[in-house]
């Protein structure tokens, strides 16, 4: 069997990070092919359930990116999200899940360079770890 391709789910907020991804494309910046973008309105939309679902369904990594704190299109969404992410990330780490598989970032729509850089960084941390084996839901 061919080696499983690493798949990283990227939840990008529509207003900042998705825009940054668009701009990175316009600027022809090259980065890892392992990222699969799911567009969400706001990083505030992301909850533990979605992140956990991604791991359970076989994502090898999850990356959530939103607007910079204070620059949320919806005023405060990412401030709330930030608390969630930190607590969730810490609890995951506490349970022994590689936190390197879970990434958060704030990237504005102008920061194409940062987007490409972080995308590559995320992939570079996850790919060498190989397919995820913790929190993956397998057949009974």
């Amino acid at each position, binding site marked *: 069997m061919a080696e499983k*391709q690493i*798949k990283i*789910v990227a939840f990008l907020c*529509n207003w900042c990070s*998705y*825009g940054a*991804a*668009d*701009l*990175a*494309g*316009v*600027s*022809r*910046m*090259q*980065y890892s*092919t392992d*990222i*699969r*973008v*799911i*567009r*969400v*309105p*706001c990083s*505030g*939309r*992301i*909850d533990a*359930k*979605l992140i956990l*679902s*991604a791991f359970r*369904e*076989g*994502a090898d990594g999850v990356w959530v990116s939103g607007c910079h704190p*204070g620059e949320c*299109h*919806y*005023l*405060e*969404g990412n401030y*709330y*999200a930030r608390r*969630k992410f930190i607590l969730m990330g810490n609890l995951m780490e506490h349970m022994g899940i590689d936190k390197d598989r879970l990434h958060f970032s704030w990237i504005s729509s102008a920061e194409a*360079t940062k987007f*490409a850089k972080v995308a590559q960084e995320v992939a570079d941390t996850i790919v060498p770890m190989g397919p995820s084996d913790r929190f993956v839901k397998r057949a009974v």
Partner: protein
Amino acid sequence: MKDEVVEVEVGAMILSPGFKPFDPSEFDNYQYANHPNVMTAMEFERLLSASGPTEGHLVRLSDHKEPKKIAWFQCVGSRDMNKCDNKYCSSVCCMYALKEAVIAKEHAGDDLDCTIFYMDMRTHGKDFEQSLNSAVDQGVRLVRSRIHSVEPITGSDELNIRYVTEDGNVANEIFDIIVLSVGLEITPKVMELADKIGIELTDGNFADTDSFAPVETSRKGFFVCGAFQGPKDIPQSVVDSSAAAGEASALLSDARNTLTLKPEPVPEINIQGDRPRIGVFICKCGSNINGVVNVPDVSAYAASLPCVEYACDNLYTCSQDTQDSMTQIIKANNLNRIVVAACTPKTHEPLFQETLMNAGLNKYLFEMTNIRNHASWVHKDAPDLATQKAKDLVRMSVAKVALMEPLKEGTLTINPAAMVVGGGLSGMAAAKNLAEQGYQVHVVERQPRLGGQANNLYQTFKGEDIQQEVSSLAQAIEENENIQVHLNTTLENVEGFVGSFKSDLKCESKTSTIEHGVAVIATGALPLEPSEYSYGQDNRIITSLELDQKFIADDPGLKTMESAVFIQCVGSREPDRPYCSRVCCTHSIDNALELKKANPDMHIYILYRDIRTYGEREYIYQEAREKGIIFIRYSVDNKPKIRLKDDQVSVQVTDHILNRPIEIRTDLVTLATAIVPNKDERLANFFKVPLNEDGFFVERHAKLGPSEFATDGVFLCGLAHYPKPIDEAIAHGQAAASRAVTLIARKQIHTSGNVAYVNPVICSSCGVCISICPYSAPSFETEGKNQGKASINSVLCKGCGLCMASCRSGAIHLNGFDFNQLFSQITAIN
């Protein structure tokens, strides 16, 4: 195509012919015409662009080697009376040079040396000063100097620059690329046009306008916007264009809606209960996608996915003929869900949604996935993996779209009345325009009179008498039947949302409520009360506004003074207030000239950091120098010092040329104090609009939406947005009014279907949603069978999904991004 003469009858005309970048060919000392590695900033922009000649790869054009050092020369074709005839400052070049330098470093890495040779660093725009600071932090080198000459180095592609340093020495430095920051100028054709129309031009050949009518030309009915009115950047151009549109509309308000045509709406097909029949349209985007991703392969794959009844690829899915055929395909195949795999939904979603509607489908039965920006363009060296990724993205979208449901958009009736908060110049300009366009306006002013800070100002740099203009404007406002002025009034509470706000006003102890459909925030700003330079300890140390007061009062003392000192940047461009207050350089110079007029023998010193007399304000700077006003530059870490001794005021400053401290004995010290925002958090909260760290309001978009908020129905103008001079404040007021009218003129608007809703059976009434929603959309039901359960006012909901992500019970759903929809995408990744 053959030329055709078409005659159109119009009631007003807006001139926006723009500018052309200055052509530096005639400057032989820069080698522009001779050397491929000398280019204009516009050419350099192309070099940085992914769609440019090198696909964004930064190289010397001479040999395609990566450069190590790049120099920018500022003021090429600007502020220059000798080599060209452009005395004015082009306003935008400092900022674009900084931007290019930073991007160049991002492209080529931190080792790239980027040096900007400049005279004054003019970053007077909103957030520009912060960009300047961060550029410096990122290693962009700034050299204050004017270039003497550029010499190619024989036997190499490099260029030697000879320039004079600040202390008068000649220096040489070698660069790979030289970028000429060329200015803006008006073309002869435009001048001809102006002549034909019969409008007056300024010395710089810009359309002449009055500070109090900044978009009106000298001929009635002809309006101007953009760089033809003066060199300006994008946000200011956008402001002007809205203002010009608004002023033209005011002129033509009687004719509104007399020539409109309405398209026949296509009835919506009821797909409730039908199994998903998905159509997938995959765009080749010419070769933009197909050049990397194997689009026919993706299309064949899409056809094999569950519920997909039709899949095809198109050369350009967004082209009109594809749109037409899409409509036909949807109808012919009975499709009820559509996926487009192409570019970004951020720009193209509305277009495809319209196609859905034309085919009779609810526009929410749609999902778009971005296989260009997120695949072909960013994985050009991995076509197989990019194709695989495109398939994954299509599969994810197909999974999601199957779960999309038709959504209903709410209809909001717009109350055609506006509230303008703040009765300063900007607010009055907004109110006047709104009233002239035929709408009811409430102007709410805290003070007992209209005019705001303008009541404290003496004259504009063009010499217009501000007091006279303000009182006639105030009078016009008070006399306008459409305007109700509420003086001595504060805003106590705001309820409602776009189209139907209810605001509580309090005047003395009386409260009243007004209803309005839109609001314009024009709350202005305040002068800084300085805490340095011994302010308050001697009545000869005053602020700029206090000096204006003396002019207004025609203070005889001003004529007898022997010496006057102006200190610039008092409280601006400092760590606590890292922005430029924009108006102070012009203001001080104007006042200095006024003093000079009163007493030509007076010794006048202006202590500054950078002189920022942008645009045609530059003329008075030149005049001031000509008239012997002495400009002494100081640096922020070595500020001037005031000495009060023996009833004498003296100022100590280090002369930047002599690099020696000098002491100026003076009769008057004028402090050009910063403009500070009101930081009105209460107001921000009333309208759910953001404030930035400095305390100014944050507009919808820094470039493209400077006169409105992201919050629907709330508009922004004047100094509450950022410091600005009178002409810009008035244009901003007119622009905000103009933007507001685009909303209220529609009478009704539709709200997005992508909103959240609560399943009351699952709701646990814990109140998280109510606690966190920035828009107060959720509330508890107060009666009925769901009493005590949360419910969401879909009109207030912006669809961010924060409540949903915070709802532990899973009672909240978000149309378009619901858990099952995102989950289907997640499960489809593998």
